[in-house]
């Protein structure tokens, strides 16, 4: 691999050829604010927050699309750069609701993070025109508040490049540009299949998981990576846990098979875990009716009954049905139970559905 050396804020760094200035900075823990950049998506260069000063270049080039070159001299924190970033943030905030207190994204919002870091006041362009678009509350999965949209276009790219659907795109132009399904219809009336990729990339509160609203703040939530219990693809994601309760699912970029992508079931189907119809105690049927039992009662009964059948009719009079929904360990134990404990090969599962 070909390597190049450049100077960033006085530090000499060496990166592989083809690296962008932004990547070079991030490889070396030099912080650069970005809103429209996502390594999983094509580069877009629209938010202009990642601007830097580069010797010999006019204006302030965006680091996310500028290739690092041999001997390049980059400055990321000059007054000019910081002032310009602050002004750009002021412009975004001037056209963004300030209801952070009740916003689902609070604590996880990139705009808020940078606005705070750059001491944005929200005063500079006060009183100017603002967007007033209807809230899209049309479906059980995704809340869409176009007034919070900063038009970074990540959702548009995710929908096209990751999901291959292009349900979302920009419409109109200039100050009136907005993002949404065709004719800006609600999601429910669009071609959307609710994979939620748009939600997973949104840097602000414009797209949020409806079921998680009011359920917990990021800093209260523990994230546990696990494997989806539905189809055979084996997607990974993070279960969001608060107070011993799963409140929802968020993408885990580390996921080996699916990256940030998920389908409607994996992302939005996990409320079944806490469904009120879950079995919470062993049940024994007594004259046609189920009655609650202790584990000892139930397990002793099972052990005894299976024992009897084996005694009277032989081990092969018992059949065991394992499950393609359970873990490898459980399937292993189940077939071991059948073969080693009961003593039969009558072990199968719905392998064929």
């Amino acid at each position, binding site marked *: 691999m070909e390597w190049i050396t450049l100077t960033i804020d006085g530090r000499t760094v060496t990166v592989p050829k083809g690296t962008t200035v932004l990547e070079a900075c991030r490889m070396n823990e030099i912080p650069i604010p970005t809103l429209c950049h996502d390594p999983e998506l094509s580069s877009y260069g629209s938010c202009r927050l990642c601007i830097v000063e580069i010797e010999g270049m006019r204006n302030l080039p965006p680091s996310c699309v500028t290739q690092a070159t041999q001997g390049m001299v980059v400055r990321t924190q000059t007054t000019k750069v910081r002032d310009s970033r602050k002004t750009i943030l002021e412009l975004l905030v001037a056209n963004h609701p300030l209801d952070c207190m009740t916003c689902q994204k609070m604590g996880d919002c990139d705009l808020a993070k940078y606005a705070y870091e750059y001491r944005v006041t929200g005063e500079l362009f006060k009183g100017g025109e603002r967007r007033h678009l209807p809230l899209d509350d049309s479906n059980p999965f995704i809340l869409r508040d176009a007034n919070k949209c900063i038009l970074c276009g990540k959702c548009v790219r995710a929908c096209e490049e990751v999901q291959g659907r*292009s349900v*979302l795109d920009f419409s109109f132009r200039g100050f009136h540009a907005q993002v949404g399904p065709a004719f800006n219809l609600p999601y429910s009336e669009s*071609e959307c299949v609710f994979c939620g990729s748009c939600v997973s990339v949104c840097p602000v509160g414009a797209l949020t998981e409806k079921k998680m609203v009011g359920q917990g703040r990021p800093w209260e939530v523990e994230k546990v990576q696990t494997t989806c219990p539905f189809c055979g693809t084996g997607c990974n994601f993070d279960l969001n846990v608060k107070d011993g309760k799963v409140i929802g699912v968020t993408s885990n970029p580390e996921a080996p098979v699916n990256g940030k992508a998920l389908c409607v079931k994996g992302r939005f189907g996990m409320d079944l875990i806490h469904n009120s119809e879950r079995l919470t105690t062993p049940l024994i049927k007594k004259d046609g009716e189920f009655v609650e039992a202790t584990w000892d009662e139930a397990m002793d009964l099972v052990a005894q009954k299976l024992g009897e059948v084996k005694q009277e009719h032989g081990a092969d009079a018992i059949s065991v049905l394992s499950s393609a929904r359970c873990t490898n360990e459980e399937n292993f134990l189940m077939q071991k139970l059948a073969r080693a404990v009961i003593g039969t090969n009558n072990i199968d599962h719905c392998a064929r559905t």
Partner: protein
Amino acid sequence: MCEACEDLIDPKETELDAVIAQYVREKGALIPVLQKAQEIYGYLPTEVLKRVGRGLRIPLSKIYGVVTFYAQFRLMPMGRNVLRVCLGTACHVRGGAKVLETIEQELGVKDGGTTEDQRFTLEIVACIGACGLAPTMMINDEVHGRLTAENVTEILSKYE
């Protein structure tokens, strides 16, 4: 085909399908097709956009994005005559605004509006490149220059 069935066939639709068929293999066909579709229908009804999308295999969201990006495309029916008043620099400094005012009063509509009798659709445009005759306007494909609050009224009366 029996006459009854022939009546069911929308000639505009057939025309549109012909346009789509003509362009379907061509790269970058969307905008020319939409322009032709607008010639056929006078504007771009939702159904037409869906038909174009199916024909060219382009997602509806992208078509809507394009239609709302370019000033030329209309999602609402247009009047029989499209009246484009120029407010380009030259016209601006030569009192184009006054002319516009008169027209707006005359027709009772503002930018983008269409008169109730469907006679005119009024649009404000940046520049029609006839700056030498400022202030100017364009009715359909005809340019009218050296406008004054007085002579516009008379010009309008020429269009039915």
